[in-house]
């Protein structure tokens, strides 16, 4: 069932982490089983809003993510709905706990990771998780979500609390553009066409959705008609929609703030290889670590800006037309 938008939470300019924290706080009374686990970074993950409204349900674990992640399994075993919050890189540190004590035991626990990708900015390469989607996607039974704007984050927050099972969801640190209206819908496992076109399809998630729309707009000036698909659920991926877009446009570009290996691009390639193979170009960080800089500077430097997406679209259309 598609989640409905709550009252305006996540206004323009709110980061995804702020939208998440505010929504979680607003939903807390409706979901009395929810408890939030923090490793001393409530201000960084957005759950300081929840701490303020529901201090008795904010469980402090200190700077000890492995214990926090596995303890979530125990909390879930007693019927609570634990929401583990930390930075995405520290989720990687506790990934084996997420694997054994959450996913393998099929616990109804949520992991919500802030500071993913280059979007982290000045903290530099050590803090920028470019591997988390790949890592969590490889865990059986783990749902992986990366919303694109504050309104979608608010909807996704409700959806993961209603969903029964382990979820990994990315938020984000930098101010986020409002891409969607109040009538936006979010459903786990579904993508949506947010701009139509016929020459190629860009499939994007997270901060890259805004850049994909910008790329499509630029290409329109070159008389190229480009479809943009927002794909907030990376696992399970919306294979049906992907197959339809590949059939109708004949070429696909993926765009993500993540390593090109194993993330959204990998998921799209796997799905299309099995349904409707088409030429694909991958926009992502090219198997290198990040560095310090402002998010938009980093996007340009590491090749995931709107211009890079547009260039990938030109390449993929050239490959499509060159096909025998």
């Amino acid at each position, binding site marked *: 069932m598609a989640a409905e938008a709550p009252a305006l939470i996540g206004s323009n300019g709110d980061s995804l982490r702020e939208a998440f924290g505010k929504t979680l706080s607003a939903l807390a009374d409706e979901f009395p089983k929810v408890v939030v686990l923090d490793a001393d970074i409530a201000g960084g993950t957005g759950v300081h809003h929840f701490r303020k409204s529901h201090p008795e349900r904010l469980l402090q674990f200190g700077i000890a993510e492995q214990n926090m992640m596995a303890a979530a399994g125990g909390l879930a075993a007693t019927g609570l709905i634990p929401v583990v919050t930390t930075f995405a890189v520290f989720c990687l540190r506790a990934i084996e706990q997420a694997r054994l*004590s959450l996913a393998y035991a099929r616990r109804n626990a949520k992991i919500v990771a802030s500071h993913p990708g280059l979007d982290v900015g000045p903290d530099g390469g050590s803090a920028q998780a470019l591997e988390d989607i790949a890592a969590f996607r490889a865990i059986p039974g783990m749902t992986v979500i990366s919303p694109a704007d504050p309104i979608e984050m608010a909807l996704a927050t409700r959806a993961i609390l209603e969903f029964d099972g382990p979820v990994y969801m990315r938020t984000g640190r930098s101010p986020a553009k409002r891409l969607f209206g109040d009538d936006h819908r979010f459903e786990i496992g579904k993508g949506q066409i947010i701009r139509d076109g016929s020459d190629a399809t860009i499939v994007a998630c997270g901060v890259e959705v805004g850049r994909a729309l910008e790329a499509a707009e630029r290409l329109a000036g070159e008389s190229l008609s480009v479809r943009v698909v927002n794909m907030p659920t990376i696992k399970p991926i919306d294979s049906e929609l992907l197959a339809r877009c590949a059939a109708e446009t004949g070429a696909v570009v993926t765009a993500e703030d993540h390593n090109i290996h194993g993330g959204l691009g990998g998921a799209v390639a796997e799905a299309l290889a099995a349904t409707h193979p088409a030429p694909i170009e991958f926009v992502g960080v090219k198997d290198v670590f990040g560095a310090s800089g402002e998010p938009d500077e980093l996007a340009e430097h590491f090749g995931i800006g709107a211009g890079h997406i547009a260039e990938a679209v030109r390449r993929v259309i050239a490959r499509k037309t060159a096909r025998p």
Partner: protein
Amino acid sequence: MALTLKSITETTTEQDLQTKLAIAAAFVRKHTIASIYHAGSGHPGGALSSADILACLFGAELNFWPSAIDDPARDRFVLSKGHAAPALYAVAAHYGFCDAKAALRLRKLNSPFQGHPHVLDLPWVETSTGSLGQGFSVALGMAMGLKLQNIPARVYTLLGDGELQEGEVWEAAMCAAHHGLDNLCVIIDYNKLQSDNRNAAIMRLEPLAAKWRAFDWGIAEIDGHDIPEILSTLRRAGVTQGRPSVIIAHTVKGKGVKYMENVPAWHGSVKLTREQAEEALQSLGAGRGEIKDLLDGC
């Protein structure tokens, strides 16, 4: 309605109870050997060392019964040293949580008795373990969840000594004390040997009691094979207030099987020959007929 610990102890003399627990521990040891023999692999040393502790927990301390495995108010037990699974399966079989014959099908495809316990295979297993350190954290989460919901149940977890080398264990130790989880009890099967060698040679644990004391836990040090001492210590831990308790149980790896005792090679994962299995069962006091039943019946 499930029986309560109180009703059991009221209808049983202390002497009778101890005798019953000794019988349970012997059953655990014999079934551990038999199931590992049939599996062709498994970890006998640390299963045998924990048999008396498991017998006391399941036979006297845990408010946990086959008729009420989903009761929210049940006590929880987590085998953090998941490689001692054969002993857990055996003690559970002895107390009616599963069929004893079925539990001999250890480590076989399509058997729920995996090499390490899995919650989705066996409904009376509280969580999946087999990666050291994690069971303790899960038990901590359970204790926290019970407290948050005002459920007056207790959580027990059995850790191996080698397991204490995992950093996560000390994260959990700090966390449980900080949150005053007096409904949590850790028992350490301190047999002094780990996979490759003695703890002291691989990574020193001593001074062990001082470490837990420094983390502000209530501590007891006991002989982990002395049933009256295990019982009385568990009972004392059960009424501790304000902080979690740890029981450092000094044990012998391979306890009960003479040729395995204190020999690191029997940590596992080992294959037992027919002769070795027979000798082990004899060492554990099994008669000719019982040995035949255990080794031929699967």
